[in-house]
């Protein structure tokens, strides 16, 4: 009788290992560079420069409203490449499985990897599978790395940001972080849904305005607040002012954030781009974004300011008309959200 959970023997390198690889990996990814399971993939790039990034995923729970660790593992790495000006092409996929993980879960996760990669037109080109004893990992950890080809037109440089520039976000804030917290606390029904998705379509839609785009980031851990603070850290003549009264927020995300006493500005997005551009290009980029699926809530977050008391700071204009400082998030806010 075949076991319905992962056994330690599945990582032993013998017949069981071969079965697992065939069933889990070859069946889904075996047509491209993985055909015949070579030790390494040989890839042919068109351009001279590549953009390369890696990320590990330890999210708990493995499945959450809006996706699972598989979606996250694909999008996490390709989004890093995309906002750095790369066209994501190839992905590595390394799995660390805990003895006893139900195959049903593994299948759903790998289906998600397959579907997310196909949708993003990225090829899973190489991979690895290990099994560890029960208790040595929490179900399943994934590492992915993504190689993209550098897109010529982008001239992205955080140092190019200047007063007057506008800060845009491609959708609602904090949905992934709040979806995870809601799932952990048994309030998932009707609540926030993770925004987990490829941001490449948004990056690509901004490409015609590349000359006026200074900088892009995907606001994952620490959320928008962390990215904005990193932008102005150490700046002596520029700060950021955001208008808190018009932040794009999904009602479910807002509700869970209020219940748990968390601020969506600090909660992770997994499918949003934060983009800084010259003021003149802002409307055109927002217009292009709003036509994309998932782009209806794209919005202007704020601007880069030369006002002296703001230097090196991120300030939020509140509903009362006062302003407060949006600090860098502290240490442990939401562990293991990705």
């Amino acid at each position, binding site marked *: 009788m075949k076991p319905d959970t992962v056994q330690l023997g599945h990582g032993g390198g013998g017949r069981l290992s071969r079965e697992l690889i065939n069933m889990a990996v070859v069946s889904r990814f075996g047509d491209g560079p993985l055909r015949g399971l070579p030790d390494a993939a040989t890839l042919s790039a068109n351009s001279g420069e590549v953009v390369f990034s890696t990320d590990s995923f330890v999210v708990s729970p493995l499945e959450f409203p809006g996706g699972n660790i598989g979606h996250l593992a694909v999008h996490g790495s390709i989004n890093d490449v995309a906002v750095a000006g790369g066209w994501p092409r190839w992905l590595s996929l390394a799995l660390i499985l805990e003895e006893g993980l139900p195959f049903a879960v593994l299948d759903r996760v790998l289906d998600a990897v397959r579907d997310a990669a196909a949708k993003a037109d990225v090829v899973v080109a190489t991979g690895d599978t290990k099994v560890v004893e029960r208790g040595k990992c929490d179900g399943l950890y994934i590492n992915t790395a993504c190689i993209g080809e550098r897109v010529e037109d982008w001239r992205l440089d955080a140092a190019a940001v200047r007063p007057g520039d506008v800060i845009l976000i491609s959708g609602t804030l904090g949905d992934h972080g709040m979806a995870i917290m809601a799932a952990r606390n048994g309030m998932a029904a009707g609540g926030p849904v993770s925004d987990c998705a490829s941001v490449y379509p948004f990056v690509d839609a901004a490409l015609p305005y590349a000359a006026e785009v200074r900088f892009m980031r995907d606001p994952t851990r620490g959320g928008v607040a962390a990215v904005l603070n990193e932008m102005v850290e150490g700046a002596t003549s520029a700060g950021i002012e955001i208008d808190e009264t018009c932040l794009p927020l999904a009602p479910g995300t807002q509700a869970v954030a209020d219940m748990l006493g968390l601020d969506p500005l600090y909660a992770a997005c997994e499918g949003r781009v934060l983009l800084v551009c010259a003021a003149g290009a802002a409307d055109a980029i927002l217009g292009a974004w709003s036509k994309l699926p998932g782009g209806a809530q794209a919005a202007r977050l704020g601007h880069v300011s030369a006002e002296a008391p703001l230097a090196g700071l991120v*300030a939020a204009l509140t*509903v009362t008309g*006062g302003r*407060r*400082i949006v*600090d860098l998030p502290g240490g442990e806010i939401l562990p293991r959200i990705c």
Partner: protein
Amino acid sequence: MKYIEGFREPRAARALVEKLRLLGQSSLKDGNGVTFMEVCGSHTMAIARYAIREALPEGVALVSGPGCPVCVTPAGYLDAAIELARQGVIMISFGDMLHVPGSRSSLARARAAGGDIRVVYSALDALQIAAAEPQRECVFLAIGFETTTAPVAGLVPLADERKIGNLSLLTSFKTIPPAMDALIADPELRIDGFMCPAHVSAIIGADAYLPYARQHGIPCVVAGFEPLDILLGIEGLLRQIIEGRAEVENQYSRVVTAGGNRRAQVLFQRLLEPEDALWRGLGVIPASGLRLKKAYSSRDAAVRFGVTIGPGVEHAACCCGDVIKGKLNPAACPLFAKVCTPDDPVGPCMVSAEGSCAAAYKFRDIRQHAY
């Protein structure tokens, strides 16, 4: 009814700010300022988060009161909790307590050293944790005011019902009215009005504040936690002062009633009895704490494990005591933002999300920062 968005509506908020400014201008002459105390820590947090201090009219000062449960929990309580963790007991806590400094350590450090400390968002999670490991002792860190006391004390009958014998409470429950009595009795403090707690009042009822208005002539307004709630609360206090009234007004009528939550009150009467309690910064206040009655002593971790909760040792330069009494602005403490930060807190007011110092640090307004 929209319970959140409606109370965060920017146009309404800014109109109220303007109204407050005019009210202040016409009524508060030079040197005739008023000081209101927001008793509750969640108000402190919301006031900072929405930059409400910056929006106040000249002559109106808001001081933060003792209503942050983490802040007033003495170091000795943490010492006892850390000791139980060291003995291998599963300690279950809300997240705020983890970084509060005890005399020598914190629960976060005890966890890093191998202590089994579980952070929960709901008291009910404690039942699951205890049921999952019936062979181990589980202790819930039962601190808080009336709002938190209700669900946490409610664990006792639930654990009995589900025959979960390995769960007990390390109690340091406190009640708000005795602390307000102590503040009124303090000759160094002048409070012209109380913004009374929102969710504590949901349990004890707005009528609990009648003595402050009637006997002490101090205007009271029960206000909610959204920015418009708070602005309306300040408006109510200001109007009472201008009109020479001292009453209890309930701005938060969508949640708070005059009599409070009868079910919770019955639960308190059945399970709990008053005790003199030590408040960090305020000292011992008679009958200001609640402990489990003798009949429930098997659920009382202090009895069960024979631990005594001493006063503990606090950092000599820490001003949390004066901050909690509203005598000192957090930024005036010599440790503030220099030695004491949210990442490395010295006093409890810097740890808790509701703490005055954490609020002042996290939501420093631009004016303050520029100096």
